[in-house]
């Protein structure tokens, strides 16, 4: 499995990244997920994405490796942006490539679910009312349960 993981301020091109995976003879399916900055009540003026340099790449690598153990993947690309973003900007790109669609679909969901819980990124939203850190959507109890499981 070929793995590409990048954390960067610059935008990314879905077409360019897709082209890198789609030309491989063994690849029969590529699933693409793109996360975008969406509006919030009060009107989003901007978003800042912070991360924990070093740990971010390490965690993403572990998550992708776990997916590679569960499904027969040819290649995985994860690109996550940090820094200043605005409404409708691209935040994250995930490409999962496999011989067949089932593995590519399943691995895509698996990686995003884990990324949402274990990759050290934090969003701060700015609206007309000021700036505020985004609260994790998991209920506190769920977050605690995961914590207790050591994940």
């Amino acid at each position, binding site marked *: 499995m070929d793995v590409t993981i990048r954390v960067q301020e610059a935008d990314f091109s879905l077409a360019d990244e897709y082209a890198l995976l789609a030309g491989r003879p063994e690849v029969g399916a590529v699933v693409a997920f793109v*996360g975008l900055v969406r509006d919030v009540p009060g009107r989003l003026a901007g978003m800042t*994405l912070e991360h*924990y340099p*070093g*740990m971010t790449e390490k965690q993403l690598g572990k998550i992708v490796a776990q997916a590679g153990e569960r499904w027969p993947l040819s290649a995985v690309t994860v690109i996550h942006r940090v820094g200043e973003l605005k409404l409708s900007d691209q*935040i994250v790109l995930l490409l999962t490539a496999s011989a067949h669609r089932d593995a590519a679909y399943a691995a895509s969901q698996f990686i995003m679910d884990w990324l949402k819980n274990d990759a*050290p*990124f934090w969003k701060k939203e700015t609206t007309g009312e000021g700036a505020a850190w985004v609260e994790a959507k998991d209920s*506190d109890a769920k977050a605690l349960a995961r914590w207790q499981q050591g994940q």
Partner: protein
Amino acid sequence: MAEMTVRVLYFARLRDVLRTSEEELALPEGATLADLVALLIARGGDWAAEFGGARVFRAAINQDMARLADVLPANAEVALFPPVTGG
């Protein structure tokens, strides 16, 4: 018991509230993450509110997710942060 030093990093909302991004703490050898957190709670104020109350926080030791019972290696890099919100 001999002492060791660990480096503690704070991120995102926790860093803002505690007005601290990084510090070094001395702990007894063999101390756990829970021991470190107890030290922070003993400071009172925002520290007690963030680490000793109902608020959820998460922790990493040497850039791996950690649990309160985990023993801190000497010279560990410990990070404390709110639940993550990437993706």
